[in-house]
Every structure is written in structure tokens, then in C-alpha cells.
């Protein structure tokens, strides 16, 4: 399709090469598309009859100048026929457009659903590697291009093919000599259309890219506004933005030039046909080789032909973009999740009764970097494990691996005695309440956010009692009293902005509401002050007691009662044991603990003052 312009005019079938797997999505739409094409054929047939009727009327009028009588009837008949055909053509064309455009929209709808469903299956590694903006642009812009290819693109392709096939035949029928003349500019037109559509494609891609660069820069300015103000970086950042903005202007004007050359050029080439008719056709009529009516009809057909020709350039662009878009969409669709359910037979029987956790020589690699290196520990059901260590040591990686957000080698982790990779994901994650480090909340009410994991009961209703219990345990009750609508307060990007500590506690409540057998809290209380943290931990004690829990904590004081403490540094377990054992060992833990005590001392000084 990209290289062969003739393929476009000759067929309205989907080219086989770049689009193998889109076919099954297109198949249900085929009846609609075919019917639409039939409608198009019918509407074109009617449209083509009209100049013929005009020709008949004019020639009758010419003849009538000599022999009056019966003339009036013919003209009236043709006029009525033209009106009737026009109305019929309008009705049928409406249907052809509705049928084909809707087919395109259906493909878009289905593909977007497919794509999103697929994204839900793709593993954490994929989502880390692909920025949200990039995936979004595939879900919107690229799918839009695919849709344009199957809607208007297909319609115009079929239309052009039909119009060409019929009109050229009629033209030849009217005057073969004149047809030869009239079609002279068309090869040039085709070459021009291809040349310019390629230039326009390159130019518009350049613009899209520059827009992306500008957006990133603006995003950075807004995120780093404090540094910009402190360091009076306004002039620097403004200069940077101005440079990007000017580059955008340059690229935009390149597109303007291409477009500015192209669109009047096509309008003029359309007119050039008329010129040839006037010049060459005039001679034909004067020399008696053609009637005036024939000439008028010829001109009308030529005009009919001019639009599909103009559209050809547009169609080429639409198909190019459509295929480029489909390639980008397919890239996502063919990406297989690296983390998937075990074969049905193996996973079906798995139930986690006694949630013990055991890791044996667990290693995790992300993008070629080894983030965890041979971590081993064993945690009996009901016990509490604390993971501590410097920033970037691999604490979050470890708990992410336990919920299979990272690839894990078979046999490296066993939960309740089952190999982690043999447990169906839904079974595994259904047993785990996880409060991730960045307390991401959705634009929904506080209650909906807390009940995020328990809403799926078929009817989508929330167990409010459970939500309230979880909120209470997470120490949210006083905050909820202040929020404007309590549990019904809308939070998230489009709602009220909660403080970091509040967000963390909502995320904590979300994990608790699931009433899981295994609870994982990744630094869930780092943004609340030490006093509140102590209170929440006290309240959590009975909840933790019945469950297997893993706590990652910033403040070591919060985890020193854990059954077992794992000290991780640079992906390895450097120490493990109880608080007392580790303090005695005088290693990293003891050193971190002392540093923290200093800070605690200073804070406590003021806190109690």
C-alpha cells in the first residue's frame, strides 16, 4: 500500500501485507462495508445519469430551435428525472456514509476495547517501560488513524474506484479524442499528490514530535516551579521554552507551505479539465464532431472526476497514517505479558490456606539491572516480616515480586506451599492486600477508593461497613470528619487534593478493606508524623495478628517489634534477625537506627515541648 498507488485505485480490499491480524476485527463489519459499497455504486450511478439527462435536454433544446414541438415534454421529463434522481442519490448516499463510517467506528471501538483489555493483562515491567503519554497516544491518536482508514478512507477509496471506472468509460463514449486531452494532466496530478502527501506526512509528524517535546518541558516547569522560583530560573526556562516554541513555529510553517501549495494546486487542476474542454471541446463542437449537450455533459463528468482525484492525495495520506497507526497499535497487541496465569490445569486446584511465604535465592532483574540478588527468607503463616534498608536497596522490588509485578523464576518463591508461578494471578492477588509506596488514588469518592478491591461483587455495590472499619483502622476517621462530603468526597486528579499523609492512609485502608490473608504495607506511613504513626500501628496490631504481614518502613522504630527484620542493601540481604539481635550485631541496622534516633530526638524535643 505504501509503495503502490495503483493498488489503491484498483481495489477496496484490505492489503494483506501489513495488516494480517486486523482481519478478524474487520470481518463482522464486512456486511456493512459491502452494503455501503453497493450503496456507493448506486449513488454514483444516479449521479452519473444526471449529466446524461442534462445532455439530452440541451441537445433537445438545440434541436428544438429548428423543430419545435414535443421539446417541452422532454425537457420537463428530464428535469423531473434529475430532481428524482437527486433525491434518490441523497438518500442512498446518506446510507452509504452511515454504513461505512459506522463500520470504521465499530472497528475503532472494538480495537480500543481489545487494546485496553490487553493493557490490563500486561505486566508491570511493560508499564514501567512505556510512559503513559505514549500508550495514551496509541489508544487515541493511532486508533483514530486506523479508524479514519476504515471509515472515510475506505469510503473514498471505493468511491474513487467506482467513479473512475464508470466516468472514464462514459467520457470515452462521449468523445475518445477529448478524453485523451482531458486526462492529460492526471498523471502529473497523481505524482504531485503523492509527493506532497509524503511531505505533509513528514511535516505533520515533525509537528507532533515537537508538541511532545514542548509538553514535556512545560510539565517539567510546573513540577519544578519551586526550584525555578528559588533559583530565579524564570529567564532560563523562558528562553528554553521560546527556543522550543520557535522550532515548533518553523515546523508548523513547513506544513503550511506544503498544504498551501497542495490545496490551491488541486483546485486549479480541477479547473484545468474545464479549460481543456473549453479549448479542445469547443473545437470539436464547432467542427461538428460533438454536440453542445455532449460537451456540457463531458464537462460535468470531468468535474465529477476531479474530486476523487483530489481525494486520492488525501486517501494516500489517510492510508499511510492508518497503517503507521495500526503498526503502533499492533506493537502493543502482540506484546505478550511476561507474567501470566499458569496453565489452567495446574492453577485450578490452587488454594492458599495457610499463607506462609518462603523465598529461596530470589533474584529480580529489571531492564538488565539486577535489583534483587539471591534473597532468601521464610515467614510462617501469621508472622510479621519487616524489610528495612537504604533508599534504592530493593525493598519495593521484593514485595512487588511477591505479588508478581516482576518476573520470578519458578520455585524461587512459595506461598502457602505453592510455587508462586503456579498460582493463578487472581487467586494470588485476591489473597493479598497491598498498599504500594506511591499511594495512587483514582478520581472517585473516598469510599469507592477504599472499597476498590471489594467492589467486584457482580452488582458493583460497596460494603460500606467494611469500608468504614478499614478507614477507622487506618486512622482516617478524624480526617473524614473534616472532608466536605465525608466518605462521598471526590478525591484524585479531578477531585479534592488530599495531603500525602491522607492519601497514604486511604491507600492503607484500601488494602485493609480487602481483608486479605497477606498484608503488604510499603512504607505506608512515611508521610504521617511519628505520633500518628504510633497510634495507627497500635490500632493495626490486632489486624496484623491474624495475618501474614510484610512491612516496609522508613522509621525503624515502627518495625522493631516485627517477628523478623530483613535488612537489604543493594539488592542483597545483609542482615536479618530480630531487633535485639540486629542491634547486637552492630551492623547496618544498628547504624541506621542510631541515625534515626538523632532525628527522632530532635523531632521529639519539639513534639513534646
Amino acid at each position, binding site marked *: 500500500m505504501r509503495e503502490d498507488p495503483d493498488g489503491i485505485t484498483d481495489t477496496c480490499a484490505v492489503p494483506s501485507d501489513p495488516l494480517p491480524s486486523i482481519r478478524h476485527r474487520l470481518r463482522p463489519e464486512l456486511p456493512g462495508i459491502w452494503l455501503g459499497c453497493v450503496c456507493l455504486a448506486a449513488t454514483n450511478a444516479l449521479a452519473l445519469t*444526471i449529466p446524461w439527462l442534462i445532455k439530452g435536454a*440541451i441537445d433537445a*433544446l438545440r434541436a428544438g430551435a429548428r423543430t*419545435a414541438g414535443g421539446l417541452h415534454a422532454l*425537457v420537463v421529463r428530464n428535469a*423531473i428525472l*434529475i430532481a428524482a*434522481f*437527486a*433525491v434518490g442519490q441523497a*438518500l442512498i*448516499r*446518506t*446510507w452509504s*456514509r452511515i454504513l461505512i463510517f*459506522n463500520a470504521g*467506528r465499530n472497528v475503532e*471501538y472494538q480495537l480500543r*476495547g481489545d487494546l485496553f*483489555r490487553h493493557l*490490563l493483562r500486561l505486566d508491570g515491567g511493560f508499564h514501567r517501560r512505556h510512559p503513559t503519554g505514549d500508550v495514551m497516544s496509541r489508544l487515541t491518536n493511532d486508533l483514530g*488513524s486506523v*479508524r479514519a482508514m476504515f471509515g472515510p478512507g475506505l469510503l473514498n477509496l471505493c468511491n474513487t474506484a467506482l467513479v473512475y471506472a464508470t466516468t472514464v468509460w462514459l467520457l470515452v463514449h462521449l468523445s475518445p479524442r477529448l478524453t485523451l486531452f482531458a486526462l492529460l494532466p492526471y498523471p502529473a496530478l497523481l505524482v504531485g499528490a503523492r509527493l506532497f502527501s509524503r511531505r505533509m506526512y513528514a511535516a505533520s509528524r515533525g509537528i507532533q514530535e515537537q508538541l511532545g517535546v514542548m*509538553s514535556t518541558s*512545560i*510539565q517539567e*516547569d510546573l513540577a*519544578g516551579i*519551586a*526550584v525555578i*522560583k*528559588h533559583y*530565579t530560573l524564570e529567564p532560563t526556562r523562558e528562553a528554553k521554552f521560546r527556543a522550543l516554541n520557535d522550532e515548533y513555529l518553523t515546523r508548523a*510553517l513547513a506544513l*503550511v507551505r506544503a498544504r498551501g501549495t497542495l*490545496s490551491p494546486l488541486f*483546485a486549479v487542476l480541477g*479547473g484545468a479539465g474545464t479549460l481543456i474542454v473549453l*479549448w479542445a471541446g469547443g473545437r470539436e463542437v464547432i467542427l461538428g464532431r460533438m454536440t*453542445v449537450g455532449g460537451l456540457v455533459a463531458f464537462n460535468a463528468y470531468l*468535474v465529477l472526476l476531479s*474530486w476523487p482525484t483530489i*481525494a486520492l492525495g488525501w486517501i494516500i495520506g489517510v492510508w499511510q*497514517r492508518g497503517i503507521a497507526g495500526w503498526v503502533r497499535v499492533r506493537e502493543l497487541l502482540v506484546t505478550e505479558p511476561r507474567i501470566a496465569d499458569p496453565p489452567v490445569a495446574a492453577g485450578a486446584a490452587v488454594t492458599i490456606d495457610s499463607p506462609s511465604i518462603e523465598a529461596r535465592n530470589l533474584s529480580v532483574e529489571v531492564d538488565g539491572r539486577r535489583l534483587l540478588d539471591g534473597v532468601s527468607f521464610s515467614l510462617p503463616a501469621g508472622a510479621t516480616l519487616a524489610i528495612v534498608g*537504604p533508599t534504592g536497596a530493593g525493598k519495593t522490588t521484593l514485595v512487588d515480586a511477591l505479588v508478581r509485578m516482576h518476573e520470578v523464576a519458578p520455585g524461587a518463591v512459595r506461598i502457602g506451599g505453592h510455587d508462586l508461578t503456579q498460582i493463578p494471578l487472581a487467586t494470588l492477588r*485476591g489473597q493479598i492486600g*497491598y498498599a504500594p509506596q506511591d499511594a495512587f488514588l*483514582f*478520581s472517585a469518592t473516598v469510599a469507592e477508593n477504599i472499597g*476498590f478491591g471489594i*467492589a467486584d461483587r457482580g452488582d458493583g455495590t460497596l460494603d460500606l461497613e467494611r469500608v468504614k472499619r478499614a478507614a477507622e483502622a487506618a486512622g482516617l476517621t478524624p480526617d473524614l470528619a473534616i472532608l466536605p462530603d465525608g466518605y462521598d468526597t471526590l478525591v484524585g486528579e479531578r477531585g479534592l487534593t488530599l495531603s500525602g499523609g491522607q492519601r497514604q492512609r486511604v491507600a492503607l485502608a484500601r488494602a485493609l478493606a480487602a481483608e486479605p490473608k497477606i498484608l503488604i504495607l510499603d512504607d505506608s506511613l512515611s508521610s504521617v*508524623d511519628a505520633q500518628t504513626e504510633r497510634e495507627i500501628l497500635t490500632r493495626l496490631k490486632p489486624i496484623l495478628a491474624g495475618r501474614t504481614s510484610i512491612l516496609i518502613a522508613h522509621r525503624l522504630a515502627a518495625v522493631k517489634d516485627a517477628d523478623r527484620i530483613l535488612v537489604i542493601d543493594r539488592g542483597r540481604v545483609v542482615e536479618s534477625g530480630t*531487633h535485639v539481635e540486629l*542491634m547486637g*550485631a552492630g551492623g547496618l541496622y544498628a*547504624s541506621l537506627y542510631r541515625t534515626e534516633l538523632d532525628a527522632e*530526638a*530532635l523531632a521529639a524535643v*519539639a513534639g513534646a*515541648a
Partner: protein
Amino acid sequence: MSRVSTNDAGSTANKPPGRRAPSEELLGQALDRTLLKRIFGFVWPYKRELIVAVALLPVVSLFEIAQPYLLKKAIDEHIAVGRLAGLDRVGLAYLGALLGQYAAGFAQIYLTQLIGQRGMNTLRTRVHEHVLSLSASFFDRTPVGRLMTRMTSDIEALNEMFASGLVSLLGDMIRLVFILVAIFGIDWKLALFSMGTAPVLFGIAAFFRRWVRDAFREIRTKLARMNAFLQEHLSGMKVVQAFAQESRVDREFDAINLDYRRANARAITADAALYSIVEAVGAIAVAGLLWHGGNRIAGGTLTFGVLVAFVEYLGKFFAPIRDLSTKYTVMQQAMAAAERVFTLLDTTEPDAPLVSASPAPRAACPLIELDHVTFGYRADRPVLDDVSLSIAAGETVAIVGATGAGKSTIIKLLPRLYDLQGGAIRIGGADVRTLDPRALRRRIVVVSQDVFMFSGTLRANIALGDDALTDAQILVAARRVGAERVIATRPEGLDARVLERGVNFSAGERQLVAFARALARDPEILILDEATASVDPEAERAIERGIGELMRGRTSIVIAHRLSTVKRASRIVVIHRGRVAEEGTHEALLARGETGIYARLYRLQMVGHAASASEAAE
């Protein structure tokens, strides 16, 4: 029929989907006079180009309108009467009209877009500068996402108005007037007859305009909702997966996706119907013309040429009327976007405006003076309450206090990110409100816990806007604070790439870069918010050394989390619930014994240390 008849690609349903629709649906008038005036202000600098572009509009139309007239001339004076002589001249004139239309058309489109793009370029820069000049409290309130939309897609939407809106609307009107003049000039009776369908056409267009507009408004609302949902769930994918909620989220998305699909179906129907009806009306008009004209030709009161010219003119007349609804929608979107952009430009919340000129500096006053300072982010909730503090040049003051006690607020007040509700802050005896904020901020460097790094090079992140700094100076600064390790571990050295937000640097490294950055600035006053995050002991020692180097010979205020820092301070200020509870040196505060809060609690914590140690020893 005219070339209108198969024009499938030009209508609205074919347009690729627009960029992300704005989240708010502020759809006002398509032509708001005040807004137009302001938009016009941005293209006024290019008034010469604008005048030429507008002046070209009638020229383009004239060349276009001349063509059917020449056709009429050719038919009536040559073809129909069989006179070959002079047909060449008419043909040449036709060719001239074509070329003229092309040249003028290109110039007009190019100039219009040039003006539009330049105007948007100016507007974008203006909005960017304006946003950077807004006060910190504005950014506290306004979500980043909303500002992003204003600065990108809204301005893009405005640009659409130039690309396919205002000027082409004017061009259409000129063309319509010219066609009317031409046909009435050629044969007013036939013109009157053929215009008979025009009111019907206008009526239909008006009726459909509302339908199409409503359909498109619905599409935009649904699209905005769908994009918001996608964006959010892609960002929160980890949560969705961790809670195994994929199937529920998929169902929710399907409902939203289907909603959008249905909105599109409505628009397709409306658009296809409008398109086809206009076309049918056009064909009926031609049929009527033929019938009426035919009768007159038979009666000898009309020539073929006139009839042919009229058919051509009618075709040219219908196209703009049909496209009116599309253009109207574009204009409306652009106006709504313009309104939002200008609302942002009208936000007058300047960052640190000068209250009065700086008075002559008083002699022998403390360098930094907080004089009964009262402040809250919200007026009814004071964070600092009547805080007084004075710091002499060269002094190091450590501020300690619990989270939320107001420590970080003091940091933000000194460089005047916020203005006070009561009291005054003086630097070198001058009220900060009387100092040029940029000059003031150049004297103060703030190193915060959460170090922000810009994407670019390591060099740019240390020099941070100071182009005068040489590599040698940057390296010296880095070495003094112990950040040379950060540079040395990267093969590209100072050219090492920094990714967005510095994700490819560890927290400890980011701290050291921030120290180097501060030292390279060589400020008079240093404000340091020590990081609480635990890093490995090696980095910890490097940071401790860096802090020491940074504070040497400078007036420093440190929000302290490290005992070493506190011990180094010449004075410790204990902030509690927005007030100064105690102040003095570490030794002096300790010497207060049991009567001093600091001393009492410090000792208690030390006992804690000892207890842990003895526990461990057991």
C-alpha cells in the same frame, strides 16, 4: 452537478479526532466580540500580512468567479455559434484566471497561517511567562494537569481558528457575495429563480447546525471522559492489578467506550443527513434551473452559455453553506479555548510584587530578621504565629520541630514565595517586600529535601541557568561538597544525561548535586532542609561533609535532622505549633538541665540509645 457532489472527505465526520478535548465544557458564543478583540491583539503585530491576506480574499474569489463567466462567453460567442476565431483568447483568459486563483490562493493561505502561527507563538510564550510569574499559592491550588491543558491543547484549538476559521469564513462570505453579483449581473430573473432554493438551504443548514453541534459537543464530553479514564487507569495500573480488579475495570471502560461510540453514531447520522440533503437540494435547484432555463432557451430569451454558467455558479454557492456547520463548531471550540486561556492570563496573582522602593539600608542591623511574623496558607489557619527571630551575618541557626510545626514554612517565607499576614521579614534591614524579588532570591539559596532535577545534562543541573560558570568552576564546587563521585561514576562526566526528574540518580546523588548547585551559586544566605531519608552510611558521611562545606562562611538556616548539624549550629531554635518555644546553643540548651525541654528530651532519647545498646548487648 458540481464538484460538491462527491466531496466525502471534506465533512466533519472524516476529520481525525481532535487532540484531547478540554475537561471543562465551556461552550459559549462562536463569535464573542471581546474575545475576538483580544485574539486579534496577538495578530496585530502582523497587520501588514493580515491586510494583504484579507485583500487577497476578493482577488481569489474574483479569479474563481470569472471562470464560469468565461465558460459562458466561450459557449455563447464561439462554440454555440460555431465561430472559432477568438476561442483561443477566451481559453487564455481562462488559463490566466486559473493561475491567478492559484497564486493568490497560495499567498492568502500562507499569509493567514503565518499570522496565525506567529500569533499563537507569541501567545504561547506570553502564557508561559505569565504562568512562571504567578505566586506559589497559585500553584498550590491549581492542578498541574489543568495548567498543561491550558498551555498546550487549548492554544492548539485556538490555532484551528486561524487555520480553518475566521479568515476562511470571511472568504466564504466574499465568495457568496461575488456569486450573487455575478449571477444577478448576467441575468437577474434567472438569478432570482435559482436563488429560490437558497432560503430552504439556509434553513436546513441552520436546523442541522444545532443537531450537528449538539452531537459534537456530546462527542467531546464523552471523549474527555474516556481519555481521563484511560490516563488515570494507566497511571494506576499497579493498583488495578494488585487488587485483581482487571475485569471490573474492563467492564467500566467498555461502558465509557460504548458511550463514546454511540455519541459518534449520532454525529455520523446527523452529518451524513446534512451532507446528503444539501446535495439533493443542490441537484433539485439545478433541475429547476434546467427546466426554467430550458423553457426560456426555447423561447429565445436565454443562451446556453448563461445556463451552463449558472449551473457552475450554483455548485460554488452550495459548498460554503454546507461547510458552515463544521466551521461553526471549530469556531465555537476555539472560542471556548480562548476564554480559558485568557482567564489564565487574567489571573493576577503576581509573585512577590514590590510594595515600595527599598529604603536606604540601616547600619548595624541583623542580616535576617523575622519580626512578629504571622502566616498561614489559608488566612484562617495560621501556621506561624507571632514568630520573631534575628540572625546575624555568618551565623548558623538550626531549626528543629515536629512535622507540621511550621519549619518548612519559614524556608518559603524568606525568599518571599508567600507574603505574610502579619509582621515583617527583613534582610539586611530592608523589608523583603521592598526588594526586587529576583535580586532577593539571588542572595538566598534553598536546598530542599526533595531535590528536583531538570532533564538535560549534569552540567546544566549544577550550573542551573548560570551560563557564566566554567566547567572548572563547576568541578571545584562539586569537589568541595563531595559530589565529584557523582560525576566520576558516569563515563560522560558533566555531559551525563539526566532523565526526567533525575530518575537515573539515586536519592543520595541528587542531594550531592543539590549541594554542588548551591555552592556554585555562592549565595550570601543558605537555607537547607536536611533530608530525613535514610541512605547508606557511606553516602551519609559524604552528605555530612557536603553540608559542612556548604555552610562555611555563610549565614545558614538549617532544618536539622542530624545531630552533627545541630552541634555545629551556633544556635538552635525549637519551633512548636507555629511558635518559637526555646532557643540557644546546643550546649546552652543542654545546660538548662531539667528545666529545659530540649535538654530533658534530648537526655531521654540518649537513654533510649543506651537502652537499645544494652538490649543488644544482652
